[in-house]
């Protein structure tokens, strides 16, 4: 049976390779899904991407892009920017994949690139952005899924926006996106203790920013 399965895999690999060769410039999802069913490990995928296999690249992309996009959107609050930064992340990742040594999880490495791409770009964005307009646009996208007071919620969102970048990234990753301290520490390249300290500072700053609203909204 094992021999038979191996033969099927070989035939499938040849077929998929011929499909890829017939149209090397575009990899569609069905091809990737079919291929993915016979893939076994991420290191194998990485090796194939490094060798120029675009089906494998698409497979890696499909596995990681949703969370990369999600993180980019949380950090930017702008769908167009999140899309662009996600693309930049993967273009850079594929270009540098040969240098990925596997010291950390691929997801950690990708999120590190994402945070770097976003941080670098957002420094420029912040200098020129019409924040009032953008904040109004963002607030219109919010849905009242929780019972929080709209005024308090809006103040909290603004306070998160205005946090220094290192605190903001930390609190978004931990409290908003649910990363662990260990994961954040690896992504940001700091010690876990530093990460905890930053989170504590971020929370303290948020509470201070909401202090004047606290008495009337504390019940």
């Amino acid at each position, binding site marked *: 049976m094992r021999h038979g399965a191996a033969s099927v895999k070989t035939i499938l690999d040849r077929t998929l390779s011929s499909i890829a060769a017939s149209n090397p410039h*575009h*990899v569609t*999802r069905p091809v990737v899904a079919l291929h993915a069913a016979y893939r076994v490990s991420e290191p194998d995928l990485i090796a194939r991407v*490094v060798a*120029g296999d*675009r089906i494998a*690249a*698409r497979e890696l*992309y*499909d596995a990681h*892009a*949703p969370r990369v*996009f*999600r993180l980019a959107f*949380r*950090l*930017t609050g*702008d*769908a*167009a*920017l*999140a*899309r*662009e930064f*996600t*693309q930049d992340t*993967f*273009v*850079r990742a*594929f*270009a*540098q*994949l*040969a240098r990925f040594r596997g010291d950390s999880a691929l997801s950690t490495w990708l999120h590190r690139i994402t945070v770097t791409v976003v941080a*670098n*770009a957002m420094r*420029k964005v912040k200098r*020129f*952005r019409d924040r009032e307009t*953008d904040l109004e646009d963002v607030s219109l996208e919010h*849905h009242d*899924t*929780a*019972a*929080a007071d709209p005024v*308090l*919620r809006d103040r*909290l*969102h603004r306070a*998160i926006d205005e946090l220094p970048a290192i605190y903001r990234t930390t609190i*978004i990753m931990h409290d*908003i996106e*649910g990363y662990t301290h260990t994961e954040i520490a690896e992504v940001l390249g700091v010690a876990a203790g530093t990460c905890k300290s930053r989170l504590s500072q971020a*929370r303290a700053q*948020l*509470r201070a920013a909401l*202090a004047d609203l*606290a008495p009337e*909204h*504390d019940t």
Partner: protein
Amino acid sequence: MTDERFDELMRDAAQTYHRPPSAPLDEMWMEIEQRWNDGTVERSNGGRRTRWNAIKPWMALAATLVIGAAIGRASTRSVSSFGVRKLPARVATTASPSPRLDSALSSPYEAETSKYLGQTTALLIALPSEVKAGRADDQFLARAGDLLTTTRLLLDSPAANDQSMRALFEDLELVLAQVVRLQNNHSRTELDLVNQALEQHDVIPRLRTAAADLSAD
């Protein structure tokens, strides 16, 4: 504010703060593939660098002079050569914040790009004679390293929104990377690699075309 109340607010924020839409996976992948097809990914991977095989040492001086002339022309006309008018489709098709950002950022980057092009021109023109005379010292090569860093920063800046300028930056990145490598090896072969970098990417014909375009503007 109580801890409990604050935690409750943060839980609410997890649901409402910059709530992500569905990721447009196919659209993003098409763009990534496009950039892959354009050579961005392979080039960074080093694939093209390994294919340099033609050696024509005499090209060094001629090439750098042509680069200098073309870059000089480009730098004096950089105001009109990049910015909103020639935004690539990738930027132009995004929502309003990006084009607004690019147009707002163009001026400071123009100044920086102009300065960078001038310095790069001077360095590349001086390179063959510096190497031949054994004067390509650490300070000279450190300048090349600084320019290489600037190149990479510019590649990530709005200054690279113009496709022709981006292509020029990318090719200069390769050339400068080779120049930096001279730090460890001042041999003729290494200098030849710089020449090959210029030749492999058809830098000279492209620069001639760019220079002609600029003259026609």
